[in-house]
């Protein structure tokens, strides 16, 4: 399978196999005019299988959101056909408007225009809790 090399844009690499569509939706990539390639189940020495997303446009991505979904992801910036920057995602301390609180008793279920904020409460087990009601975030 052949996918054109990017001249100016970003490559989101080392996505756990099967998670690319989640990231596509989260980053609202459907709203971009440029070419976007989702490559699924690519063979990887390190991961066995992985997904890759290539975006043919320079774009500021929400690193916190990516880190929340999968902190193994790397983001490569391509300028004039050359990789100029490689960033690793980390588990963010806070995520804002990435996931919604599903607790029907939470104030976020009725109060309009407030941010849905979750904070990392257990790094080892990757547990995030709503800052309002402390309900665990569900993927």
């Amino acid at each position, binding site marked *: 399978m052949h996918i054109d090399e990017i001249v100016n844009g970003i490559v989101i690499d080392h996505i756990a196999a099967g998670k690319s569509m989640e990231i596509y939706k989260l980053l609202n990539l459907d709203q971009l005019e440029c070419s976007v390639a989702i490559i699924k189940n690519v063979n990887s020495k390190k991961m066995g299988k992985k997904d890759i997303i290539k975006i043919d446009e320079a774009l500021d991505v929400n690193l916190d959101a990516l880190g929340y979904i999968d902190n193994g992801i790397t983001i490569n910036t391509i300028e004039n056909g050359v990789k100029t920057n490689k960033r690793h995602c980390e588990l963010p301390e806070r995520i804002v408007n990435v996931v919604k609180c599903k*607790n029907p*008793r*939470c*104030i976020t279920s009725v*109060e309009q225009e407030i941010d849905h904020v979750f904070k990392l409460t257990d790094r080892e087990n990757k547990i995030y809790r709503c800052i309002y009601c*402390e*309900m665990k975030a569900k993927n």
Partner: protein
Amino acid sequence: MKDLIDILDLSIPEIDKLIEVANDIIENPENYREKCKYKKLATLFFEPSTRTRLSFEAAMYELGGNVLGFSEAQSSSAAKGESVSDTVRTVEAYADIIAMRHPKEGAPTVAAAKTQIPIINAGDGGHNHPTQTLTDLLTIKREVGRLDNLTIGLCGDLKFGRTVHSLIQAMVRYDNIKFIMISPKELKLPEYLINEVLVKKNIEFVETESLEESMPELDILYMTRVQKERFFNEADYVRLKDTYILTPDKLEHAKPTMRVLHPLPRVNEISVEVDKDERACYFRQAKNGKYIRMALILKLLGIE
């Protein structure tokens, strides 16, 4: 610290200081009669609660301040669909401090983020009720003389009882605390509190269904009501509500220095005959609630 939303917003030294001030208020009330002169407390109760609201109002009046507010959502603009954010922004123009009860969890957190004046969480759904926990801590300290080296029995509804959850969070910060959780298996303490608080902090605890067997060991017995409003099914409520009723004969096996606490209101889980026993301190506890709220208002207004 601008607000009190969660008991863990307060450090141990801050709690010690509040207890010290509350004790001083009890001993020298005349020194505090004008401390909040010309200050106004707004009690915003989007959900009815007689004793918490009256306790806050009595606290402010005893400090020489004034009180305004509402006691149910129906008599506020929330009934017209106003958001919490807009309500508190408006009230901020009229009051110096807000005590707020709301049926939705986290509502006081929203209020705190939207205002410059202090917000006190007076209960947000089944979530937090930090001034009740402060009341419990002041009561234990006054009745037993210490907040460490205690065996605490928690009895009744440990699943939905927010006062129990907050008390556990507060007490695990002190040395050598042991909990005995006494409840029917349907109302046991939630798993997350066991795993994320008790096990994680290496706190000794026992789960049992027997109040009688636990009694001789206890320094504190914290009784709770099985709350009808937390059940979806009337039959479950009826089946569980009479599981534990504290009577004078059960107290015979308790230490003479043991103390019985209850956040009130009680239904029938403590027989009225127990009230005469010196160990029953729930009405003294209710009184302490006013004093610790006075200390808290002073702290948050920067007066003490």
